[in-house]
């Protein structure tokens, strides 16, 4: 054992190994973040304070009592029961349900459309491949609003009516709407029938709804097709060649080998497209479909509560989009490669 020499009392004690706090890597990031956070909070406080101050000056402080007042207007198609005596919040709820209905149908339709077209752009059939390209390039370069107006005024409103309507087995397409066979009264199977010149059927969709979802599906389908095409292209060529050497057909290769691997590239891109579709559904007002935005607009006009109504709108669309995003992130987690 070597004895430890006693500390030399003549030497000064060693300086602490830590630098001053403004050069300390453990402190500086926290300070910077705190300052930035504080600035953001200040900005929000300023904007909110400004809003409240100006609204108070105009005698229009935020109030939510109008939500309970009778709406006084009717809604042409509503999944949940609604009439003009019910309060504004019921009208907004009916609008929200209509929006969700259009978004759900739009999402399913656009996904099918996009997947088929995305797959078609890898087809061995040159005509199919070029058709897919033309569709994508034409559709995604024309504004959606224009396309909706086209579908509604040029396609759906020029449909024949009454006896002249387009009649297929179980389905009738007329200017007054799309009539589909289903279970009618007494759980009997009922096809569309013409009663006094007006079509009747268990399931009726308005042409406004038809024009909206057609527009959304065709438009978002083009973007989704590009996402799907990118996803398929990301799968190494060797996978195709290996599958082909095993004797798998083009379609079987795509379905069993390529698509499952491309999903992890496709899903994040799909998320963006789904969110856009949900937001784009607010253009429904252009084709007379009573969605949340349309109801909110009427409400805003009748009550004059612009700030409150816009806040409701913002919250509703934000929630809807965050919900879609959360679901898609869950799906993304599922399709990731599992590390073993």
């Amino acid at each position, binding site marked *: 054992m070597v004895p430890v020499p006693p500390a030399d009392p003549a030497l000064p004690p060693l300086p602490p190994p830590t630098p001053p706090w403004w050069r300390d890597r453990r402190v500086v990031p926290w300070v910077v973040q705190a300052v930035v956070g504080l600035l953001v909070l200040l900005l929000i406080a300023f904007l909110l*304070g400004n809003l409240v101050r100006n609204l108070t000056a*105009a*005698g*229009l402080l935020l109030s939510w009592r109008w939500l309970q007042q009778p709406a*006084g*207007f*009717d*809604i*042409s*198609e509503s999944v949940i029961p609604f009439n*003009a*005596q019910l309060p504004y919040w019921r009208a907004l709820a009916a609008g929200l349900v209509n929006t969700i209905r259009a978004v759900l149908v739009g999402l399913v339709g656009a996904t099918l459309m996009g997947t088929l077209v995305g797959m078609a752009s890898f087809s061995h059939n040159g005509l199919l491949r070029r058709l897919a390209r033309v569709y994508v390039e034409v559709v995604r370069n024309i504004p959606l609003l224009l396309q909706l107006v086209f579908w509604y*005024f040029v396609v759906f*409103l*020029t449909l024949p*009516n009454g006896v002249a309507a387009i009649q297929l087995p179980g389905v009738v397409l007329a*200017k*007054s709407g799309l009539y589909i066979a289903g279970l009618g009264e007494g759980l009997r199977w009922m096809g569309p029938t013409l009663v006094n010149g*007006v079509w009747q059927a268990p399931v009726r969709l308005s*042409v*406004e709804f038809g024009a909206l979802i057609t527009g959304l599906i065709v438009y978002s389908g083009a973007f989704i097709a590009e996402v799907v095409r990118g996803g398929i292209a990301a799968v190494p060529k060797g996978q195709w060649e290996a599958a082909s050497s095993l004797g798998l057909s083009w379609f079987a290769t795509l379905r069993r080998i390529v698509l499952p691997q491309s999903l992890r590239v496709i899903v994040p891109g799909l998320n963006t497209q789904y969110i856009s579709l949900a937001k784009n559904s607010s253009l429904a*007002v*252009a084709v*007379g479909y*009573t969605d949340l935005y*349309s109801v909110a*607009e*009427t409400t*805003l*006009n*009748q*009550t*004059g509560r*612009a700030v409150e109504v816009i806040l409701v709108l913002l919250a509703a669309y934000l929630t809807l989009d965050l919900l879609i995003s959360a679901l898609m992130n869950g799906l993304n987690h599922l399709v990731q490669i599992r590390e073993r």
Partner: protein
Amino acid sequence: MFWNRTRTLGASLLAAGLLAGCAGDGGGVQSQKLSTITGRGKLICGVEGKLPGFSFVGPDGKYLGLDVDVCKAVAAAVLGDPEKVEYRDLNSSERFAALASGEVDLLSRNTTMTLSRDAAGGNGLSFAPTTFYDGQGVLVPVASGIKDLKGLAGKPICVESGTTTELNLADRMREQNIPYTPLKFQTSDQTFAAYLGGRCVAVTSDRSQLAGKRTSFPKPDAHTLLPVVMSKEPLTPATTNGDPAWADAVRWIVYGLMQAEESGITQANVDAKLDEAKANTNQADLRRFLGVEGDFGKLLGLPPDFVVKAVKAVGNYGEIFDRNVGPASALKLDRGLNRQWKDGGLIYSPPFR
């Protein structure tokens, strides 16, 4: 601390502005809007823009119509030139926000005066005198054979969203227990396009608007107005509650047009009348009205001869009506309720006293 300082700064700037204003014209009227308009050199007027007879763009690219003439009269009275107007086309959903935010100075856009729009707790508008007493009507194709509201049972009806029309329709149909489907569109163009496209068997709006729009249909005679009046629709120019002095100025410019008709002053004879007033000191009413004596203009923050300028620009109320919507125009509307009170109508100017 920061808030207090900005507020103090704002208050002192405002106070300085007010003091400077007072010093400028010796105790005259202070209207933020009036000085903004004179400073800018033009009036920004919110109009419908696509409604024949009321506000629309003519073949030469200029705005025409009854609502447009109100804008011109105000511009002439305030700025001395009826052409110093910038028009903004507003749809029914945008109009109040555009006025409230100050994007337009004046809303002359076939807007119905109602309690909730006037009230400070509602839209907070300040209405000028009504320039057209209207009522809501229903237009149907002649071929449909529909004669009354009952004939519309179960049928789709096109209507512009966010209008009083939409609410009146709901009320009248509910009263009579008639089921119907309202199809709502954001603009009147879309509403009428859907009606002409055959999506609705009827379109409802103010009777004057239906008459105006019908003139631009491919076959105007194939459509007929049902003999029902579903509501009172006093179409009225509006400003905001925020500037009472500006609201007063607009109010009395419009009254001036009505009083001019009652006093027999027209676009053609206004100069002669002015000479007459200047020559005859005993014609006190006429002298005050045309600004030869008294200080009516100054009280409102306007030039003394604002009535002369307005009438010279667009004529009196009767001339405006006849030119744009009267029997000689394409709309062929009867004066009806819009006659002078002496003829049994509702057009009545309070005294210029």
